[in-house]
């Protein structure tokens, strides 16, 4: 069992990701000329007089950045939860974070509409705030289970997460049942996810949530290598396991909650991207974690390109991630390359 050189894998993945980013900026319903946009930029023309530059700066670029941040964050969170619970199925999504967030968003939409309100908190819509709060609530429950009781196995936590997810889904169905069709269409669309942001406000929100959390998580990479050998081994090597668990749980969930509340519950990224990267890098977390972030961002960029060009109009990105990611994941499983897991 020999390892491929980390530098080569990293260079390859980063190259592919850069290509995805450029493609994402270049591709869309309007074909635009970079040269023209560049001339406009150099001439310092206002955006109103430079339509190509405007599309580039106001639509393509923020959209690409949103995809990068959301995809990277989701993949990193998935990777971290898998390492934390030592289970290949553990991601914030399988722990019910997304469903809980979606339920929060649903409930908020309905309540606000029926009450005729449009509340906002520090520039965030009540829908976002509710999605965020419910997502954190879900994971806090899981965390309390994990910490308050000794020796809770990761299977128990996953079952708890699945249960909370099902409860959230039931709650969502109840809300749908009680609400009128006009509202339904709006909520359905949110549920499918989308990085079709306009302007930079959502990008800034995403960046403010994703970047600091990711940075702190990435700094813990070497500790996850230790944790892979069991909590007692890690402890014996001087890792403060309890603190690592708390930090990771909170940051990973916060990260996911920010992303879900901003771009909707985009599925699959957190599960497949870390596995795919792991099949290249092995479980060297100092390589695996940053590359999962890069690959996750690139994957969502690619999915977003598909979303823009495959069908007329915009296909919701959650559908694309599932259709692209699902078969690929099954392929990985059938090849018996379940990453590097000792299962």
């Amino acid at each position, binding site marked *: *069992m020999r390892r491929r050189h980390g530098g080569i894998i990293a260079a390859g993945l980063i190259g592919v990701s850069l290509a995805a980013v450029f493609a994402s900026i270049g591709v869309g319903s309007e074909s635009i000329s970079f040269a023209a946009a560049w001339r406009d930029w150099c001439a310092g023309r206002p955006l109103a007089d430079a339509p190509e530059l405007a599309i580039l700066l106001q639509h393509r670029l923020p959209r690409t950045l949103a995809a990068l941040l959301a995809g990277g964050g989701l993949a990193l969170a998935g990777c971290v939860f898998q390492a934390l619970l030592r289970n290949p199925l553990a991601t914030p999504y399988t722990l019910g974070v997304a469903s809980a967030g979606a339920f929060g968003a649903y409930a908020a939409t309905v309540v606000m509409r029926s009450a005729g309100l449009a509340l906002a908190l520090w520039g965030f819509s009540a829908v976002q705030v509710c999605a965020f709060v419910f997502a954190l609530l879900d994971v806090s429950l899981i965390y309390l289970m994990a910490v308050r009781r000794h020796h809770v196995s990761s299977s128990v936590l996953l079952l708890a997460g699945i249960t909370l997810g099902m409860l959230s889904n039931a709650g969502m169905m109840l809300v749908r049942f009680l609400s009128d069709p006009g509202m339904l269409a709006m909520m359905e669309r949110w549920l499918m996810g989308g990085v079709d942001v306009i302007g930079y406000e959502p990008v800034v929100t995403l960046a403010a949530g994703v970047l600091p959390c990711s940075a702190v998580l990435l700094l813990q990479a070497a500790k996850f290598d230790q944790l892979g050998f069991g909590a007692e081994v890690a402890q014996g090597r*001087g890792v*403060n396991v309890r603190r690592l668990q708390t930090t990771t749980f909170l940051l990973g969930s916060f990260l996911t909650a920010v992303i879900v509340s901003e771009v909707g519950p985009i599925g699959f990224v957190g599960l497949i991207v870390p596995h795919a990267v792991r099949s290249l890098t092995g479980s060297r977390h100092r390589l695996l974690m940053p590359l999962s972030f890069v690959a996750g961002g690139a994957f969502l960029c690619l999915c977003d390109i598909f979303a823009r060009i495959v069908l007329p109009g915009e296909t919701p990105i959650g559908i694309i991630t599932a259709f692209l990611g699902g078969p690929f994941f099954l392929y990985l499983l059938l090849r018996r390359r379940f990453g590097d897991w*000792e299962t």
Partner: protein
Amino acid sequence: MGRRLESHSVSFAYVPESPVLADVDVGVTGGEVMGVIGPNGSGKSTLLRLLCGFLRPARGAVLLDGQPLSAIRSRERARILAFLPQTVTPAFALTAFEVVLLGRYPRLGPLGAPAGRDREIALRCMRETETDGLRYRDFGTLSGGERQRVLLASILAQEPDLLLLDEPTAALDINHQAGIFALLRGLARNGYGVVVVTHDLNVAGQFCDRLVLMSARARIVAQGTPRQVLTRDLLTEAYESPIVVTEHPITGTPLVWPEPASAGGAKP
């Protein structure tokens, strides 16, 4: 001037109703192998976790060179004492060399990136445990004896002074068991202090300088040289069933057997 790790009247309980250890005084110094023996559930693993500082004593204190262990930062502690738990279950596939290199962690910088020197040390530790030939093997595919040697190399890579090992030979055949213990003896000769939990009283009697005999009644029945501890009376008390002690035909160290049930209590 070896290190000394000792417990002073340490008491501990996971749940207040059932104390696991009460007023325990044990100590190990660099250069010696101390065996911890006793029936299942007598608190051997618990004692080791206390000596490592993973658990805090309810009363009493664990001292490292006279300083309370709880006052030492965990990273600093990991450079002095290394612990090998009873069961090690890697979640991911790693090569044997990667497993050993993981042991460098407490000696690495904040990012945990090993340098060339760390690889050299890891390899040297593999040579010391005669596992350097296995370096590219998948750890999960190693035999029980090979695994334990690789794990031993991985904690040696921490460059500790004291080793605390919880049943390192539990799954090994008689030959590999003796091999591991001979290795531990060699390490002690080089100045390491070794605390090792084992269920094999005969091997313990042959290879350990001192033994600590624990009983299920939250206390230490006896400690001292194998000859002092491995006696019929003390073992019968600790294991709560009759035990016979004879002599090893070659080494003269005590040999321990459960008394045959048919003989009952009618032995002379």
